[in-house]
């Protein structure tokens, strides 16, 4: 319950304050969103599995976002452009799929 409220509060804050993203951070935003979604779905699944852990959730969220941003940064610096961020999207996308499938099994038994 607190979790849903916190999520909603964050969305409302973002919509109300309308922060402008600095141009330097702009390329990292989409990847950060994917990383955050991965952490959230992982947390939901752990919750349904009954093994949720606050510390693990926070750490995985922060490290996911940081590592994803670092990989994008590294790709930019190495001159391979968006190709390294493809790896982030693939890995996190596969994990999101797997976690959503597990959540679905929990909720619908199918």
């Amino acid at each position, binding site marked *: 319950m*607190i979790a849903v409220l*916190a*999520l909603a509060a964050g969305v409302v804050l973002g*919509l109300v304050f309308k922060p402008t993203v600095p141009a330097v951070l702009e390329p990292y935003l989409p990847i950060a*969103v994917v990383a955050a979604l991965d952490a959230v779905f992982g947390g939901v699944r752990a919750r349904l599995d009954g093994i949720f852990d606050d510390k693990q959730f926070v750490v995985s969220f922060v490290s996911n976002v940081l590592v994803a941003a670092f990989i994008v940064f590294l790709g930019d610096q190495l001159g391979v452009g968006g190709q390294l961020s493809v790896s982030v999207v693939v890995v996190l996308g596969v994990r999101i799929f797997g976690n959503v499938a597990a959540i679905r099994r929990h909720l619908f038994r199918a």
Partner: protein
Amino acid sequence: MTRAPAPPHREASNLLTDLFRDSLDGGYAAAAERRAKAGPEPPWQRRTGRGARAFALALVGFLLAVAYQQVVAGAAGNSRTRADLAAEVAQRRAEADKLARDAEGLRDEVSRDREQALAADPELQRLRDLEARTGLARVQGNGVVVTVSDAPAAVDPVTGRVDPDNLGRVLDRDLQAIANALWQSGAEAIAVNGQRLTATSTIRAAGEAILVDFRPIARPYQLSAIGPDGIDKRLAESATGKQFKRFVENYRMVFEIKARNGLTLPAGADPGLRYATPPPSAPPSGAGPSGGPSPSGSRR
């Protein structure tokens, strides 16, 4: 039955199979195990954990909202910029058209006044001829209209895809060749899609478009020329005319020559004065602050 040997590259395949099989972070299971061994955490730790969880989730929501707004703003900004640019182009073009009309009206006035002033002078006829030749005056007469256009794009009958390489496309070179052939056939004045060609006119390509005097013209291209009788036949007999007839047969390009009576070709763009300047004794009311040199400007 024997067991199959372990495949080579175990590391790599393990990485991928792990990824597909265990999408959950291993840390959750480890933490649960630790909890089962050491018992539940003290209350202060649980409270901090809950706070951190709420904060992280708020951050996630914030991130989502910011990303959403970023995407929306970007899309709106792009389309708005394009619409603004298009509107500005249309507005500037309308302004330029209006100024050109004004200039034409003023030029008509000047030539009327001049004709009145020079009514008795035999030079007037020579002046008129020169103006007609150089494209400074509107001309009327009989002549020929040449219509050129691209061949219809080849469409693949199976896939329905349009072949991007259209060999029958009209290039700027084609219009140049036809204009030159018209001059050669005796044309006295030529206009392309209503734009008069003068001695300094250009027919050029910019990307896909053809520009006449830096103004884009659209298909089908119509070259109207005023010239002596039989100019249409001479054009058809010329090397260029024969060449385009072959283009019509081979590439299905559109090329038609039609004699027409009573053509009116507009005056060309004003060439602008290069060396002449308005006399310094012009009435000061006409010259604004940025006008020609004012009498008081030559103070030494």
